[in-house]
């Protein structure tokens, strides 16, 4: 008899590993259909200008050029985006940032394509441009989008609790600071890519590197004027996403190209430079904090003003702002708070979804202010956080109710008792010559799912195949986090199978069911809940049918195992293939639709902010610790040790959990220290990986991960999403460590060696 193994909680190997490491797994970038054309865009080199004339005559008749398309060739609304559809597939009357696509060229190969793009002449009439979000809010600022009541304000709102202005004057200590947070480039290894074609039946089929196949399909239908039921979007494994493929990247251009390629397939694959130019980035932020407490260490009042630069188009700039506001009071009880938020259009590149989704920007500010305030009242920074941390049933300063599992206090306690914390003074005092050392901590949270107004739905589908194996139809794209391999683990647990009894279909609007985006720390939480229920339903059907087949009277006497079913009292067995043969095809397919719970409580939140996703119900929590060492001669910062303590519920797979913790912390270190995205009047200065510096294996330490395993009763097997909480705290933990080493906080990130050196040189001589 095959051993029954319980896969949940074990480090089951990812089923996608062998294909990927052998180079056999096909990503969207790896498709080269026979007879395919290459498509590429001529992009704007003005940040804001009217298009006066597009001269395609130099290229129209060049050999190897198949088609040259402008907005006039688009039959639909020529607008994509969600929730605001404001971004043209090809610019029509004007361009709004340096990088806006204006002309689309289809050519026989990449070389001819680039030559043609370079030869196209576009005449512009430059318009006044605005690059600073505060300036864009001014009365006479140039308008990005005409006919908007709120002009350049994409979304604005307030959260008001108590009376923070009056309460601030009651505080014994108050700290005020202004933070500047930079853009961050996703820099996934696979740049935006895909292939598309229109088949004989008029189906526009797009294989793309996308986190949102279902949403793309709807947007493409609207933008291109092609019937939605004649569009199929397939999302193979992505070569990274992190939010940068949460929505249309090349899909609009690809779809348009395929509609004008005479039935030939079309391929697009952005160069790294074009990816930097055209992709969304983490929103840069200007965040003002004023935080006050009493002498007994109790937080009393918070004023916070958040301004996010969403660039030329909305993308997810509204929801990102809503989450920034929701996370702005962090994990603390604060009775009086005023949190104001503004997401503003400018002529800069587009801000969009990026792992953390607004939380990293605000937690960077809050957690530094927490440290400064603790020092001011002479409290230990960890004790100060513990004193004010929320428990289940509390409200955060932002008025967000902690209705579900809440283990920030255990996270803080784990750090408090850890040797990296308890031995910090000794470690700091042992700094080698010309080195300064400091230890910093930061705490925070991250909501799971879409918030109260957009239903977070996943539709799972699983099939018992005629040969007794199972097929899972994954509804949510896998950008590398391993949610789809985890689907196998979940189904294996429910159905008592080993993982080799499963095959996995990646998201495909023809075969799988709509299940939302690969985003918001929701992929395993939402789809996993749906799949668990679908698999249970299928299990019951299998057992019932086996009873019908004479395998005993009672389903509870039956045991499902790999490819087989046993009658325990008699030890008789039959194959699942035999059971499958006695089921109708539709009976062998089990579908379950899951909707994630939300907090609907009435509150004082501006309805627009609510609509954008405020508040969440389920949160993950974490406390991070960084030990940093600064070179006094170069200003270079080394992260020597790093501890991440996380409450993301029960751990389904320790190895995949650690993958998220380690990868997220390192991406956060990049944000904190090296990823210095530079723009000058809308012109990109860091255009590629030579000038935009990602962390390498030499730059980062091993990450120590501790899981505080609460049971989140709404999650499958007690889990919560881990994907985003892991990135939120590297910047403030490192910044706090640096401040303790050099005696001064730096409010502008990244915390570059140049900045450090300047501070070190300004110090009075020893």
């Amino acid at each position, binding site marked *: 008899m095959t051993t029954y193994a319980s896969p949940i909680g074990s480090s089951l190997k990812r089923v996608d*590993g062998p294909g990927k*490491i052998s180079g056999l797994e096909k990503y969207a970038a790896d498709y080269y259909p026979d007879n395919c054309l290459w498509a590429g865009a001529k992009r704007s080199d003005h940040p804001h200008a009217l298009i006066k004339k597009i001269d395609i005559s130099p290229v129209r008749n060049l050999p190897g050029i198949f088609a040259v398309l402008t907005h006039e060739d688009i039959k639909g609304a020529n607008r994509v985006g969600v929730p605001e559809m404001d971004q043209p597939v090809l610019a029509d009357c004007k361009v709004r940032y340096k990088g806006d696509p204006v002309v689309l060229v289809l050519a026989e190969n990449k070389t001819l394509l680039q030559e043609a793009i370079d030869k196209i002449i576009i005449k512009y009439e430059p318009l006044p441009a605005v690059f600073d979000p505060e300036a864009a809010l001014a009365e006479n600022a140039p308008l990005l989008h005409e006919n908007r009541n709120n002009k350049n304000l994409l979304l604005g709102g307030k959260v008001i609790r108590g009376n923070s202005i009056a309460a601030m004057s009651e505080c014994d200590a108050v700290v005020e600071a202004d933070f500047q947070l930079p853009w961050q480039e996703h820099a996934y*290894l696979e740049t935006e890519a895909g292939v598309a074609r229109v088949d004989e039946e008029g189906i526009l089929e797009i294989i793309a590197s996308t986190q949102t196949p279902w949403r793309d399909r709807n947007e493409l239908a609207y933008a291109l004027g092609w019937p939605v039921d004649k569009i199929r979007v397939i999302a193979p494994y992505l070569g990274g996403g992190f939010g940068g493929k949460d929505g249309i990247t090349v899909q609009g251009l690809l779809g348009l190209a395929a509609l004008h390629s005479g039935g030939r397939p079309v391929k697009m694959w952005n160069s*790294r430079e074009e990816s930097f130019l055209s992709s969304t980035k983490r929103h840069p932020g200007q965040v003002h904090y004023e935080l006050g407490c009493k002498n007994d260490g109790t937080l009393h009042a918070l004023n916070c003003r958040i301004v996010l630069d969403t660039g030329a188009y909305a993308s997810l700039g509204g929801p990102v702002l809503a989450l920034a506001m929701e996370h702005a009071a962090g994990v603390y009880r604060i009775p009086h708070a005023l949190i104001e938020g503004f997401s503003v259009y400018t002529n800069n590149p587009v801000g969009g979804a990026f792992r953390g989704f607004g939380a990293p920007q605000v937690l960077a500010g809050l957690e530094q202010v927490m440290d400064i305030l603790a020092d001011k009242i002479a409290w230990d920074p960890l004790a100060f956080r513990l004193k004010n941390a929320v428990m289940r049933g509390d409200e955060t300063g932002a008025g967000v109710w902690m209705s579900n599992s809440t283990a920030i206090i255990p996270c803080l306690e784990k750090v408090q008792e850890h040797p990296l914390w308890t031995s910090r003074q000794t470690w700091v005092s042992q700094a080698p010559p010309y080195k300064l050392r400091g230890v910093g901590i930061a705490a925070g949270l991250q909501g799971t799912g879409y918030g109260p107004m957009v239903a977070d739905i996943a539709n799972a589908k699983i099939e018992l195949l005629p040969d007794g194996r199972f097929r899972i139809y994954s509804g949510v794209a896998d950008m590398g986090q391993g949610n789809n391999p985890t689907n196998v683990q979940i189904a294996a647990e429910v159905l008592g199978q080993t993982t080799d009894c499963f095959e996995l279909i990646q998201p495909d609007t023809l075969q799988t069911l709509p299940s939302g985006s690969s985003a918001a720390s929701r992929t395993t939480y939402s789809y996993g809940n749906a799949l668990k229920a679908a698999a249970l339903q299928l299990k019951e059907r299998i057992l019932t049918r086996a009873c019908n087949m004479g395998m005993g009277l009672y389903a509870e006497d039956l045991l499902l195992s790999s490819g087989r079913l046993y009658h325990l009292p008699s030890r008789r067995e039959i194959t699942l293939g035999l059971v499958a043969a006695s089921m109708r095809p539709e009976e062998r397919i089990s579908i379950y639709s899951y909707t994630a719970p939300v907090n609907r409580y009435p509150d004082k939140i501006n309805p627009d902010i609510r609509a954008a996703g405020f508040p969440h119900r389920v949160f993950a929590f974490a406390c991070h610790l960084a030990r940093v060492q600064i070179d006094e001669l170069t200003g270079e910062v080394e992260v020597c040790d790093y501890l991440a303590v996380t409450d993301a519920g029960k751990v389904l797979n320790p190895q995949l959990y*650690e993958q998220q913790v*380690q990868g997220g912390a390192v991406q956060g270190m990049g944000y904190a220290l090296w990823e210095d995205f530079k723009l000058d009047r809308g012109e990109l200065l860091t255009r590629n990986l030579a000038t935009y510096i990602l962390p390498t294996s030499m730059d980062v330490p091993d990450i120590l991960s501790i899981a505080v395993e609460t049971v989140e009763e709404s999650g499958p097997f007690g889990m919560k999403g881990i994907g985003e909480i892991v990135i939120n705290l590297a910047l403030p933990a490192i910044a706090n460590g640096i401040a303790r080493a050099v005696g001064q906080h730096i409010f502008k990130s990244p915390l570059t060696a140049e900045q450090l050196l300047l501070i070190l040189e300004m110090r009075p001589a020893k």
Partner: protein
Amino acid sequence: MKIAFKLNGIRQEVDCLPDRRVVDLLREELGYTGTKEACGSGECGACTILVDGVSKLSCLMLAAQLQGRSITTSEGMSLGKKLHPIQQAFVDKGAVQCGFCSPGMLMATVDFLQRNPAPDRQQIRAALSGNLCRCTGYQKIIDAVERAAAEMRDEL
């Protein structure tokens, strides 16, 4: 021009422009898409292949440079269905997430372990510092290389 070389042990003869990039030749002409491209300028290591056993960046090589050489890509590392010990260690140790850097990491590791069969973690970090990964934070890749080195030493 006609260029003859060995690819994963099989003799190939292609007729192409001498300045065609090797990464394009492999992916577009020969269908070996395991070799990835992620920057096109030698910054990221995703396109790493072995040329006569030495790791090279195929986005910076031209087709003519392949004449008479022996090339290995990630597809050539597994014998039949069995993974190479380094590939197996990457899978077992969770070193693969999105996987787009993985073939390049693999090829860089093969070269490195030939030169240093018993490296410590810091040496592994230095050896792979030309290969960017945006998912893993590198830790499990280092774990995998350590494991692979140990297993391959045991086999000797």
